[in-house]
């Protein structure tokens, strides 16, 4: 990089390409090279490469890629996504076989990990780095450089004022410099350079002028710093998100009251982790659920809406110590860098089944998953371990925490708390298919090869159990008992992502940089003063980066600081767009 100022191809920037460049005696390079239109590729592959690189890091391409990114993000909100809702994808594929297959082939159900989405943001990042690195170098140089020297003509600047005063040019320059530097020596408002010009003859449209005093001043280097910080922080953000993806793990476990689980891959119901994850990184703590409490609204407006969930747990650390903790929605528990979230809850009634020979074939807590606001909860009991020669038993049913019986014999839940619990079961017998080694969903019973129990009229038999009840299973299959207490279960989600602090830091840095880049003013002010016909002439010009309503007030403040100034005519030249 030989030039001192770097500007991405295609930037429209009056501050560096505007008036100063077109004046003869501006410091060469301080205002950047002349605006360069997209040039045709030079001959040879080197030239071709350079041209491609320049295009890729141009403002225009960055803009195109940003637009593409917005459009590419769209389908993921319309079509179901595997990451969020895999079953919805399966359903969609079932409903739209042909279109679905094609959409799937092009990654429309995994938009945010698809080749095309990744290609867009990776290109954007490359463009960003290619643009930001040279800009950072150039800016680091500019930070040490002096303000750009006073241009010959002031007429072209957006703010341009002339006037006269009785004081000498030296005094004008000294007052202007003092005012622009501001009160604090160590943190001057403007970086100021006072200078002098020799007398000069007329040249072109510029009339002859005697020797002058000049002041050149610039403020707002932090604006560009903020802009660079913002763009660099975006790169940091994307990198830390990616690292987090590679290192994270996430497991889900359902535990019931007074029971627990250990932080080990095998103890989770589902477990998922990034490519760089190693199981040794799991801290082997254990946890028990001591109690779970929930509250629901009882007012008529929001009847049965949830109001509070609290899980009381005990954490057992590997060193043998243990402590009591609570987990609430919005308040995950932090254990050794892993966060434990309360993601769901429900009832896990204790059910036991005795088979036709009087042997206990099943005894355990069965989580019933709530399906609505009043916790109408669905669950299945699979009883494969019956005495030899007997049919296996499957039970499907609903747990209703506060049940009412309707006139037609059906039951429904009216409130989520267990005020009047009822278990409603249908009974199946046959081969549950568990011996074939195919993993099964514990919350589904495949009834295709099973026989449903029916009564004499051919109607399905439904068993109704209140806590403590034992009832006969139909067809002499045995009995089923519902335990006296109904334990609660909680679904816990445990997640560890070591990149979180980095992600947050970069996001906040980006916000900080953006704020600086948008709201810190970047301005240049020049003053020239000379004596002609015994009167001191003063000329002031101002230029700002971007839209800056404060430029004129800034110049006005300077003018009032100049001793005895009589203002001639303020002009605000219009900016062309």
């Amino acid at each position, binding site marked *: 990089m030989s030039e001192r100022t770097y500007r991405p191809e295609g930037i429209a920037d009056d501050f560096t390409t505007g008036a100063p460049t077109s004046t003869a005696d501006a410091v060469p390079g301080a205002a950047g090279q002349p605006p360069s239109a997209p040039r045709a590729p030079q001959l040879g592959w080197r030239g071709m490469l350079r041209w491609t690189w320049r295009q890729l890091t141009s403002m*225009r391409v960055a803009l195109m890629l940003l*637009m593409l990114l917005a459009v590419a993000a769209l389908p993921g909100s319309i079509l179901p996504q595997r990451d969020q809702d895999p079953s919805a994808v399966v359903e969609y594929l079932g409903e739209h076989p042909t279109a679905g297959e094609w959409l799937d082939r092009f990654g429309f159900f995994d938009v945010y990990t698809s080749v095309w989405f990744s290609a867009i943001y990776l290109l954007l990042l490359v463009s960003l780095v290619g643009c930001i690195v040279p800009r950072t170098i150039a800016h680091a140089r500019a930070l040490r450089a002096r303000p750009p020297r006073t241009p010959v003509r002031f007429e072209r600047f957006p703010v341009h004022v002339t006037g006269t005063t009785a004081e000498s040019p030296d005094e004008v320059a000294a007052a202007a410099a003092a005012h622009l530097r501001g009160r604090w020596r160590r943190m001057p408002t403007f970086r100021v350079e006072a200078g002098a010009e020799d007398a000069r003859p007329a040249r072109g449209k510029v009339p002859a002028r005697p020797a002058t005093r000049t002041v050149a001043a610039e403020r707002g280097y932090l604006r560009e710093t903020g802009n660079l910080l913002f763009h660099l922080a975006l790169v940091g953000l994307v990198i830390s998100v990616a690292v987090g993806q590679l290192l994270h793990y996430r497991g889900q476990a359902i535990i019931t009251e007074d029971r627990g689980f250990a932080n080990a891959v095998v103890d989770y119901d589902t477990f998922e982790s990034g490519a760089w994850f190693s199981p040794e990184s799991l801290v082997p703590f254990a946890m028990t659920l001591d109690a779970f409490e929930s509250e629901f609204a009882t007012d008529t407006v929001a009847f049965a809406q*949830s109001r509070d969930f609290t899980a009381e747990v005990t954490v057992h650390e590997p060193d043998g110590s243990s402590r009591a903790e609570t987990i609430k929605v919005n308040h995950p528990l932090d254990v050794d860098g892993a966060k434990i979230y309360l993601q769901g809850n429900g009832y896990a009634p204790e059910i036991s089944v005795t088979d036709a020979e009087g042997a206990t074939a099943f005894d355990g807590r069965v989580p019933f998953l709530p399906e609505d606001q009043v916790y109408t909860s669905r669950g299945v009991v699979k009883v494969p371990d019956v005495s030899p020669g007997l049919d296996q038993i499957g039970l499907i049913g609903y747990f209703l925490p506060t049940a009412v019986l309707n006139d037609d014999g059906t039951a429904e839940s009216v409130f989520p708390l267990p005020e009047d619990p009822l278990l409603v079961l249908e009974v199946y017998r046959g081969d549950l298919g568990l011996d074939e080694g195919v993993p099964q969903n514990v919350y589904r019973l495949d009834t295709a090869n099973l026989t449903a129990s029916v009564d004499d009229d051919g109607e399905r038999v439904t068993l109704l159990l209140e806590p403590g009840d034992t009832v006969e299973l139909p067809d002499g299959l045995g009995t089923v008992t519902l335990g006296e207490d109904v334990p609660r279960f909680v679904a816990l989600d445990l997640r560890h992502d070591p990149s979180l602090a980095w992600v947050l830091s970069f996001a906040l840095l980006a916000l900080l940089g953006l704020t600086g880049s948008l709201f810190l003013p970047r301005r240049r002010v020049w003053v020239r003063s000379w004596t002609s016909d015994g009167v001191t002439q003063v000329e002031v010009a101002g230029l700002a980066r971007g839209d800056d309503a404060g430029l004129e007030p800034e110049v006005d403040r300077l003018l009032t600081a100049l001793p005895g100034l009589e203002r001639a005519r303020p002009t605000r*030249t219009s900016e062309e767009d």
Partner: protein
Amino acid sequence: MEIGDLSDLLVWAAATTLALAMIAFAIDLGRRTDERLEARTETRAAIGAGVGAPEAGSASGGGSVPAESSAPPRRAAGIGMSTSWLGTILLGVAILLRGVAAGRTPWANMYEFTLVGSFVAMTVFLVWNLRRDVRFLGAFVTGLVTLFIVVGLNSFHVAATGVQPALQNYWLVIHVGVAIAATGIFTIAFVLSALQLLRDARDTGSPFLTRPGFRWLDRMPTPTSLESMSFRLNAVGFVMWTFTIIGGAIWAEDAWGRYWGWDPKEVWSFIIWVVYAAYLHARTTRGWSGRRAAWFVVVGYACVLFNFTGVNLIFNGKHSYSGIS
């Protein structure tokens, strides 16, 4: 009468008042048309006489807005302003009462979001007007806000009540509060950019917009000055939106166990952010500033509206807290 009902009543009163304000502003625009046309020809003559601003009758031209001093007092606009203040105060009280009735921050569902967003838009307009005459915006801002409130009352209204555990968090106040404020600011910026595009099209001889019915456009500030006003608001809105997304991610990390999951609301917030980022880029890209950049504001604002309505009502994401079933 319950406090919640009183709040609803006040919202209706606010909508009515703001509708009146809109009518007053519209009358003002209609009146002012004829005045400004004369003023304009006078300035033209003055320029011709050699003041020297490069106005040359085109879309550009920043400064030379005709002096307001000679214009007669604008009574209709004055009535518009006072009714706007009244309507905004009524709306503010209605929002407060809503919070009292529900016993929480009054921005937790679509209806409340609509009210507070409208309130912010009106406040930005009114406060801005204290520093600079932006009464030309009055008809459009009050019109949009009245529309929002009436749609809110008719389609989004739910009774005031508490919120579920996932929403019981100070982030509800911060994240949602800033999102609503940003929306309110984007609304005004959108009006400015839309006016910029219309005025620009009229100035460059669009056959439709050069009809006499659009003469009121001549009384708008120049496209350049509309663009810079719009930019200033969009810059503030964009920073707030950035904060909204960061805050949302922090909250999601606690409430949903991940900071980002491409939930429909997250997708659209991201799209909005990218569109406004593209807008800021376009402004500084050669060949894309001015009219083209203004289109980004229009698209961005359309996304904001869709994020609020469409995403809540059509898609089934984690953000379906509208309370409408």
